[in-house]
């Protein structure tokens, strides 16, 4: 599953790193490092991270209600970029 984080928006709250530690990690105090291509077994954790990010910075595909990877948009809530 493809993942991208809008790091302008990201505030380093690390909710994502708690919920999907195999995809997201903090490097230093507040720099987020992530794997832009998460394994399929990460689907559920990733969906939780997308939903939990307080600033809606994470976009992934295929985590939206089990939709097909290329069709299912998953976006954060405060989508004001």
């Amino acid at each position, binding site marked *: 599953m493809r993942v991208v984080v809008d790091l302008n928006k990201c505030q380093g709250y690390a909710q994502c790193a708690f919920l999907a530690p195999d995809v997201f990690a903090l*490097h*230093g*105090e507040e720099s987020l*490092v*992530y794997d832009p291509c998460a394994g399929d077994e990460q689907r559920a954790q990733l969906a939780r991270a997308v939903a939990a990010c307080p600033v809606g910075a994470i976009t992934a595909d295929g985590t939206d209600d089990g939709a097909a990877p*290329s069709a299912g948009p*998953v976006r954060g809530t405060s989508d004001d970029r």
Partner: protein
Amino acid sequence: MTVEGFFERLRTEGRIVIVGASLAGLTAAETLRAEGFTGSLTMIGDEPYEPYDRPPLSKAVLLGKASPHRTDLPRRRELDADWRLGVAAAGLDLGARRVRLADGDEVEYDRLLIATGVRARPWPNETEAQLDGVFVLRTRDDAVALHRRLGAAPRRVFVIGAGFTGSEIASACRYQDLAVTVAERANAPLVGALGGVVGAVAAELQRENGVDLRTGVTVTALEGDTSGRVRAAHLSDGGVVETDVVVVSLGATRNTEWLTGSGLGAGPRGVACDAGCRAFDFRGIVTDDVFVAGDVARSPHPLFNYQFLSLEHWGNAVSQAEVAAHNMISPSADRRPHIWVPAFWSSQFGVNIKSVGVPTMGDQIMITQGSLAERRFVGAYGYQGRVIAAVSFDNTRWLQFYQQLIETAAPFPLEYSTVDRRPEGRRPIPADFPDPSLPTHGPTVTLSGYSPVDRRLVFTPARH
């Protein structure tokens, strides 16, 4: 046909061609479909890959946390596009509304989006640039090659240029315990983008992390061995550094050559467009069917005195592509301006560096929170009595606040006292940017004057 009728037809059966299939191109395509465009969509990209993300190439990938092959951008929706990947656009006929491809094919459009971005500026000496072990970092292929070489335990990595990318590469190498030398023409890293006050902090950060940082020097030659592998770099101060990997990080060149002779206002500074992303022709007349977005664009911004800004920023590519896509299929009354406040992030040596606004316009800087010594601070830049930009080191949560100050042209120096203002922050000091007439690879925001047809750009690659 009425205007409504025209746009109705454009939206349902128009032909839109996007040249440059990367961040801006993909975002525009997704936005077009999201806004109900059902006509034909052609994506032309000279790289053989589907759109992928570049920032991880100098961060997660080199830190070993992601594969250089797998940074593809997620898809927000089904695009139903005709992908022409691995073939470059080679020419544009504005009158006939036709893009010519390198393979001889031609594609007609009703609306064209130019999103061809920039490419890494190569080492100016071609023979030396060809040496085995000399790299640049812009594309997936670059990242794959560099990643492989760094994995082969080089004795030393030599980075030319301490802008953001060069500094991030040095950071990743140190993280992997590789010996690194960084050579920078200015007196500190990041000076071109953030000025000397912040640059001094970046220099300390590099040295403390074990980077052999050489400032105020240029690289005069790269030396190869008999089998054509790089073996040393020669410096202007007479120094010679033995190395088996050289990464050239001298900034970027805009991909506008394919537009030469097309009649568009395109040149080394990029393709000029209005705030609605419509391209100017070389007479300074705005077109209505050619749009521009992303790193290749330069557009006027009301907050920054209507100067034309060229931004090599991820967030700008996204925002400008969204506006361009919307405006391509909307009548003039419904169009939106691209008035995004520039914002940028970088991550190096474990520090999160962010900026908003246009730091290079700032003549003064004030450390308004935290302290330089702790490397955890916010600095506000002032220009003619107003706040024009801010930079944060590990203090991202405050930046939003400073963005509002920039948007409202709040007075500078800042008057209020903040929770953690330290003595060093009470006075503004010179931001210490290098003379803008001197060539530098540093800034990721370039001010390029007021004229949409300004094609002048003096860059002297003169042996970094």
